């Protein structure tokens, strides 16, 4: 492969008004897609439960898939939504693979949450300031089942609309509504338990 071949390819479909570029010109530049969305994808991967040590691999896989399929992207959804769809699939695959491996502990972050209680002293507000906010969030998210966690992360952290979430997950919008309602209730219960434990009471 030579640089010339790259240039020829670059001058091909894009310059001839290929469907993908016409449908969504901004989306045809992989470099821009990466720069615009890397931060969101990295953060969402972490909040969906990917261990820090594996985040590079998962994010890398998302963008490799995105590159492969970018020419097929029709611009019917936002690029961000499309990338989340890829991310969710990669994350699900990650957990399926991890669960097959002996010794894997899928809810490591639960332990992190428990450790937070041991910081001791101060009221809830001070404790919240001391502890790592991301670890608190991850610890609580880890108490949601995977389906509710996905919906919760996409809605509350990434702030996608229910219609967008339905597109990302390939679910009915009503299913998203009901799953999100349940996820919020579980999350609030987990927060209440965390605060109770933090104050020294029983969960």
């Amino acid at each position, binding site marked *: 492969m030579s640089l*010339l071949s790259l240039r020829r390819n670059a001058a091909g479909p894009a310059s001839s008004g290929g469907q993908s570029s016409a449908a969504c010109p901004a989306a045809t*530049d992989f470099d821009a897609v990466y720069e*615009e969305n*890397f931060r969101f994808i990295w953060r969402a991967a972490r909040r969906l439960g990917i261990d820090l040590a594996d985040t590079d691999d998962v994010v890398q896989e998302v963008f490799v898939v995105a590159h492969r399929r970018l020419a097929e992207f029709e611009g019917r959804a936002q690029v961000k939504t499309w990338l989340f769809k890829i991310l969710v699939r990669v994350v699900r695959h990650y957990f399926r693979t991890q669960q097959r491996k002996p010794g894997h502990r899928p809810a490591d972050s639960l332990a992190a949450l428990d450790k937070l209680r041991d910081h001791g002293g101060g009221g809830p507000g001070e404790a919240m300031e001391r502890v790592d906010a991301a670890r608190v969030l991850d610890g609580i998210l880890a108490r949601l089942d995977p389906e509710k966690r996905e919906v919760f992360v996409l809605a509350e952290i990434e702030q996608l609309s229910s219609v967008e979430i339905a597109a990302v997950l390939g679910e009915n919008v009503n299913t998203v509504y009901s799953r999100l309602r349940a996820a919020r209730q579980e999350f609030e219960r987990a*927060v209440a338990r965390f605060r109770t434990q933090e104050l020294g009471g029983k969960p």
Partner: protein
Amino acid sequence: MNDLESRAKAIVEAGREADAPKAADRDRIKRAVLMQIVAGGAVASSAAASTLSLGAKVGLAVLAVSVVGGGTVGVLKVRSTRPAVEEHVPAAAKSAPAVLPEAIPAPEEQPAPEGMEDTTRKAEPPRKPAAPGGRMEKTPEDDQLNAEVAVLKQAREELRLGRPARALQALVEYDRRFGQGVLGEERQAMVAIATCQAKPGPGAWAQAEAFMREAPASPLRERVREACITPARAKSP
């Protein structure tokens, strides 16, 4: 749907940006993505190549040095853990740099063949300002990486055109400007390849062996082996 109650919402808000990735994370993963794309041959024949910006394509062109001349990368799966920031300097680049042979005369200036002009810099599109919580700002590291890529690309083209002496000149320029740069491993591989082509012999083979020893996981090993070690063995009695 009911909104979250205020305490739960506060935890979500606090945690949302609590461990945001750094520019170093972005650059490291991007490099791995580009390498995986190259290794998968996605660029060579796919219309997807048109989806790359010029900057990304140049990066691919350099990282794809192992494909030049008909060689193949083989299976490359970039698997990385999240290392310290200093991983930006490849292991091979941290060690003593490959020695550029001084005995090779400077090549005569020749006009670049038609269609080979370097358009990498003038065509760089302007970047948009950073959006809050979104696209990350261009960093000085980006500029250096782009500059390193441009020099290595020039060297790679010279190699492709069968002009190893001129490639070595470009690599001397790389050393002068960047020392042990971010792409030091790629630079070391190209020095070995160019030296083996320009002046094959024990000195060149030693450079190749040093690269093989210092960059055991490099995707460029096969290319170096093909250019240096295989011909050397073929010549030995």
